């Protein structure tokens, strides 16, 4: 077991809010590295890109290898740990294995001296969850989801649990130089190392919260630039390394509420970060100092779980409208298409969506603008059915029906919609169906840790 070195301050560098989606900016990363951080961290994933990635178990980012190469080579040069959260976007076991393999390949390619990779898995067996239900435990819904049922568990393709700091502490104790994490809370890959080195829990979790999106905490708005969070025993400081960025009280306080329901609390496995009394002050030209976060330990350990179910195979087609009469009557045209499909495929199960760009494709029912008079409209027809063949047939038929739409008063008799290209295959349709918490006895019980070696 490795004993943590106790220090006065710990500097954690981060250059991306979502590893792999686009490359980190090399210039500010190297400027940050020149400031001698103690850790490099990055969030590998999120539920934000939607349910398809966990459902299908695929990685979204095309730049994961490129970013990992920068992080690994530079952190190993300085002999400081690299910590990656939620590997492969979703933190599935495949995502973890994929990232561990990439690290090993990079270590070989760059002839990096031997080092230890610690990793942990986050997938949860459905039997474990069903056993909880049989034992009378409630699997409570988050964000408006009803309590989880056995049938929804069965429908999910796979389930991951969201880890706290605990597996990070375990792997650091075991001397990991690189950590590849399964699904974890995005504050925990930073809070873990801070707590491991003996810094106070409230400040450690709050630093995790403030730096998880890298340069989005600073102004002006720039993604993929480096910042460093510095924790001491009584404050945290956030400093950007892009020469044109600075942290201000406004940018940092503004970021504290980013992508969360409330600006005051952050729940994670083991407790709640309470930010109600936080104080922000301008420490120097580009650095903000933050104090006074509180940490409320949980009275009951509940871990968040995530899962998605498949809805069907999916195709999409694109329709362009230029006839002002059809544009004015687009709802009638859509209704005609829908009824034509309903008639032709009366005995089939399918779902059909019409995204009307130029009207309300983006906001749908939330769109306050009810009447517009565009000279063009674009409609994406999205169709789902149980088989690939049927999904393509139905979607393509719906697109063709636009071409042959029957509404009174149409002057054009050669075709009522501009179409091009083949109806396109899309990813299968998935829906988040597990967004719940489950009681557990031990914060490590769902997160088995492993150690391996890489390098030469």
């Amino acid at each position, binding site marked *: 077991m490795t004993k943590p070195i106790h220090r006065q301050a710990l500097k954690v560098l981060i250059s991306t809010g979502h590893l792999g989606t686009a490359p980190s900016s090399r210039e500010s990363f190297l400027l940050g590295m020149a400031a001698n951080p103690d850790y490099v961290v990055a969030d590998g994933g999120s*539920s*934000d*890109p*939607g*349910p*398809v990635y966990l459902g299908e178990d695929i990685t979204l980012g095309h730049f994961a290898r490129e970013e990992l190469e920068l992080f690994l080579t530079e952190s190993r040069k300085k002999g400081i740990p690299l910590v990656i959260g939620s590997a492969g976007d979703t933190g599935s076991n495949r995502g973890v294995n994929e990232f561990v393999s990439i690290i090993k390949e990079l270590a070989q390619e760059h002839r990096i001296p031997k080092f230890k990779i610690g990793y942990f898995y986050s997938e949860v067996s459905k039997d474990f969850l069903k056993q909880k239900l049989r034992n009378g435990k409630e699997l409570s819904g*988050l*964000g*408006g*989801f009803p309590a989880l049922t056995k049938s929804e568990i069965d429908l999910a393709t796979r389930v991951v649990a969201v880890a706290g700091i605990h597996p990070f502490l375990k792997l650091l104790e075991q001397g990991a130089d690189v950590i590849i994490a399964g699904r974890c809370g995005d504050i925990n890959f930073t809070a873990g190392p801070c707590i491991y080195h003996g810094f106070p829990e409230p400040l450690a979790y709050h630093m995790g919260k403030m730096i998880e999106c890298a340069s989005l905490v600073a102004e002006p708005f720039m993604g993929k630039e480096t910042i460093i969070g510095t924790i001491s025993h009584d404050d945290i400081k956030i400093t950007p390394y892009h020469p044109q960025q600075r942290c201000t009280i*406004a940018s940092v*306080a*503004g970021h*504290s*509420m*980013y*992508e*969360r*329901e*409330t*600006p*005051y609390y952050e729940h994670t496995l083991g407790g709640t970060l309470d930010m109600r009394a*936080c104080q*922000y002050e301008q420490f120097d030209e580009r650095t903000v100092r933050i104090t006074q976060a509180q940490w409320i330990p949980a009275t009951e350990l509940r871990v968040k779980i*995530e899962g998605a179910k498949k*809805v*069907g195979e*999916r195709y999409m087609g694109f329709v362009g409208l230029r006839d002002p009469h059809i544009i004015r009557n687009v709802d009638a045209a859509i209704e005609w298409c829908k009824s034509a499909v309903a008639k032709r495929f009366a005995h089939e199960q399918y*779902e059909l*969506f019409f*995204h009307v760009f130029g009207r309300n*494709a*983006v*906001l*749908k*029912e*939330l*769109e*306050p*603008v009810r009447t517009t008079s565009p000279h063009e409209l674009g409609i*994406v027809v*999205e169709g*789902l059915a149980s088989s690939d063949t049927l999904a393509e047939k139905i979607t393509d038929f719906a697109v063709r029906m636009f071409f042959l739409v029957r509404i009174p008063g149409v002057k054009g008799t050669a075709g009522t919609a501009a179409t091009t290209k083949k109806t396109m295959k899309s990813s299968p*349709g*998935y*829906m*988040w*169906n597990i*967004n719940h918490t489950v009681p557990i006895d031990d914060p490590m019980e769902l997160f088995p840790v492993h150690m391996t070696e890489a390098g030469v």
Partner: protein
Amino acid sequence: MAKLSELASTIRSKNAGVNQITFDIIFPDVASYRRVLASQVITRDSITRLFNIPASRISDFVAFDLANAIKFTIYRLRPSGSPGDWDILGCQQYGPLLEVEVPD
């Protein structure tokens, strides 16, 4: 009369978990923040009218003094990325807020 986009420095929307979208309206100074709060153009009630939703779809509404910000969160009808959703990140839902008129 001014538009909200002329008074606020940041107006954004983003997923808050897979079933909610949160909206942040951040002002550059306390005066413009107080002016908008006092005008009552951004309240639970005005949001239900602007987006044409029942009050039950608003899960949280807070005036966050520390950041000179108004923040509210709504439930989606179906979770993010479900078939039929074209804003998986919820990051374009703030559009209508820019046009809100704030009386002097």
